[in-house]
């Protein structure tokens, strides 16, 4: 009887989330069950305690099956150890753990560290300093960040801000190869996380505001040579668009649309940079990634659909041949990049199961798209937006509100969301246990005045002048749970500032995320109830992760080092000073790295002296 009562109380607790906004129906699932029936393929099925890629799996779920830290003991999480890497630009990536070693890479100047988790204090095993070209500093739009790094084939592989991809021997910290992929003096940089599948490393450039021509390429893991390269604008040939290319909607079918949907030769500065995440489906042998805003940001200068900006691509992972694409925001007028993560899951749909990708777009709509053919099944607003009435599922086109069109030299007030979106690159997480996605989101709007811009190489090809303000309710951010089948919120937690951290969800139904005012939280994945909060030394704009140490203990780790695009709120109350500390938590703070006696570190290398970079964001 007691047990039943307890279950009933727990269930009620779940049904009436403490922080619910009330805009989603109360949870309908039995406690312990899935709300949606959605599942995922967790290939490459890394051992439960390890974290070898940024999103843990190819599908980009950021789901960890670990359960040692659970709802009962999560309130006892304390710091086990921490590590400051000395670099002051924004920290965005998640640490990787392979065997007894943790791998970290700093923002510019992109120094890599290997830490020995088997020794007290997790001392430095080796340090690798790639010394990238400092001219890259002035070209990176949104701070001098790196969104992650990959481990594969005994190597740590990552991008340098100056457009080199580098592979470092994971045992020795010595450079194995380095390939230069673009010219920093012309404006591009590289900030995305290299993504590895088997023999291939997938990388792309950044520079949506710099009038670059975006590309995406597959490199060989062994020596870094380019296996294939696809541009994101321009003639079909350079884009690897051939007879296999079958977009679902007719308006995206035609020859050389990457040229003809632009005036003259403007596609050459059309940006469409793939600076976000890559995912991979082993059954379809397909990779998925999105493209940025078109250049210039002032839309009246580039009448046309501006394909293939603000779009998602499905490509054959081996050859690069495009399979289909879908443009989220045709002729983007607001800087709604399409680069956010594509989470690959399977959902029940009209009596069958469909392989889909779920994508929270900057434009405020969460898309559930059949990833075999590019058909949009669900497109619903996941936060506050007013630029579009809806996405017409027959055509795949948004129905744009007249009041949201910007003008040159005239201020248009209250367009929602602003350039920064309802969500940015900060990656969401998916739990197969709840069938829900978890994402940090933004609640804000802009007053927008456009300017005509000229293309001057290595300077911004931009033209948007805006004032951003908080949306309805006055809070800038939220953390939400999302049903990708119904297209609705299950619960939401309001936060003072944008929630610009990634998320991780575990097998014990805990979701972790951080806030820009420095709170790291654990939340009940079913109810949205906050179970634990810890204030850290800087705002959190990085992705958390969880792992098992050599002592068989579960840890949760996150960088506190505010920066990146989050700098747009630097004048808001609560915005914290920069930082560079990785915090590692365990139940009661227990671990190899602490105790009541004199513990001694046995380090393998010394950190370089960190020179504070110039004081710009």
């Amino acid at each position, binding site marked *: 009887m007691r047990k039943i009562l307890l279950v009933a109380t727990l269930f009620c607790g779940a049904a009436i989330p403490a922080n619910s906004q009330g805009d989603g129906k109360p949870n309908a699932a039995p406690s312990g069950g899935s709300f949606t029936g959605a599942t995922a393929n967790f290939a490459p099925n890394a051992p439960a305690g390890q974290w070898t890629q940024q999103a843990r799996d190819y599908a980009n779920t950021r789901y960890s099956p670990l359960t040692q830290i659970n709802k009962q003991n999560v309130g006892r999480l304390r710091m086990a150890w921490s590590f400051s890497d000395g670099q002051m630009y924004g920290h965005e990536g998640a640490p990787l753990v392979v065997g007894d070693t943790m791998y970290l890479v700093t923002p510019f100047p992109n120094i890599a560290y290997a830490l020995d988790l088997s020794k007290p204090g997790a001392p430095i095993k080796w340090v690798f300093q790639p010394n990238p070209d400092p001219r890259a500093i*002035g070209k990176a739009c949104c701070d001098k960040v790196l969104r992650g790094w990959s481990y594969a084939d005994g190597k740590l592989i990552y991008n340098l801000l100056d457009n080199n991809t580098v592979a470092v021997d994971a045992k020795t910290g010595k450079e194995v190869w380095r390939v230069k992929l673009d010219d920093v003096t012309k404006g591009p940089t590289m900030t995305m996380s290299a993504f590895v599948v088997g023999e291939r490393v997938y990388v792309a450039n950044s520079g949506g505001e710099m009038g670059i021509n975006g590309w995406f390429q597959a490199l060989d893991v062994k020596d870094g040579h380019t296996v294939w390269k696809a541009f994101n604008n321009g003639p079909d040939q350079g884009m690897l668009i051939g007879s296999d290319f079958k977009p679902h909607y007719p308006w995206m079918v035609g020859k050389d649309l990457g040229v003809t949907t632009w005036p003259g030769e403007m596609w050459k500065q059309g940006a469409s940079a793939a600076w976000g995440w890559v995912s991979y489906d082993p059954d379809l042998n397909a990779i998925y990634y999105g493209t940025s805003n078109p250049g210039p940001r002032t839309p009246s200068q580039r009448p046309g659909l501006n394909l293939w900006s603000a779009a998602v691509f499905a490509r054959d992972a081996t050859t690069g041949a495009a399979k289909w694409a879908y443009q989220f925001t045709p002729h983007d007028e607001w800087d709604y990049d399409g680069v956010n993560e594509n989470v690959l899951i399977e959902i029940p749909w009209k009596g069958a199961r469909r392989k889909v990708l779920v994508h929270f777009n900057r434009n405020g709509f969460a898309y559930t798209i059949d990833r075999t053919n590019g058909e949009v099944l669900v497109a619903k607003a996941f936060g506050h937006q007013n630029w579009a009435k809806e996405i017409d599922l027959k055509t795949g086109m948004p129905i744009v509100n007249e009041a949201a069109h910007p003008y040159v030299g005239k201020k248009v007030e209250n367009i929602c969301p602003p350039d920064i979106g309802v969500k940015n690159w900060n990656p969401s997480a998916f739990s197969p246990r709840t069938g829900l996605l978890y994402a940090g989101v933004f609640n804000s709007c802009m007053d927008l005045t456009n300017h005509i811009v000229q293309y001057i190489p290595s300077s*911004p090809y931009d033209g948007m*002048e805006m004032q951003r303000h908080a949306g309805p309710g006055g809070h800038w951010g939220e953390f939400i749970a999302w049903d990708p089948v119904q297209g609705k919120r299950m619960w939401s937690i309001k936060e003072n500032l944008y929630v610009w951290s990634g998320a991780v969800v575990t097998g014990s139904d805990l979701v972790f995320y951080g806030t820009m005012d420095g709170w790291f939280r654990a939340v009940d994945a079913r109810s949205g109830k906050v179970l634990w909060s810890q204030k850290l030394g800087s705002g959190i704009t990085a992705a958390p992760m969880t792992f098992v140490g050599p002592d068989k203990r579960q840890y949760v780790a996150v960088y506190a080092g505010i920066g990146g695009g989050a700098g747009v709120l630097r004048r808001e109350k609560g915005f914290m000073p920069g930082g560079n500390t990785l915090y590692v938590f365990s139940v009661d703070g227990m671990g190899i790295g602490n105790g009541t006696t004199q513990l001694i570190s046995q380090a393998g290398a010394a950190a370089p002296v960190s020179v504070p970079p110039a004081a710009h964001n």
Partner: protein
Amino acid sequence: MRKLVLAFMLLTSPALAQVTAHSTNPLEGKADAIEAGRALFGKMNCAGCHAYDLTGGMGPDLTDGSWQYGAKPGEVYHTIAEGTPRGMPAWKDKMTVDEIWQVVAYIQSKKQ
């Protein structure tokens, strides 16, 4: 004759005298120069990096009174003309001496 006049004008143009760290801005405080500087700040894409209100973005805030490369008008001129090692482009090939002084005048007018 034309040439002579031109040479004379160039010689007497205060802007052309060698710009040093100690040079004062011949156009400082002049309303038409400030207005021309404002237009150039947009036209040359300075605003894309430093924001239309000069408070910074990709590049630093130019209104906060803190100067990495020197606060004197001659130093600011030099930074704009020559660029910097950390990615501020050089503008001496894209703007005339007078235009750079106009932009400096605009930046000076925005100091908090």
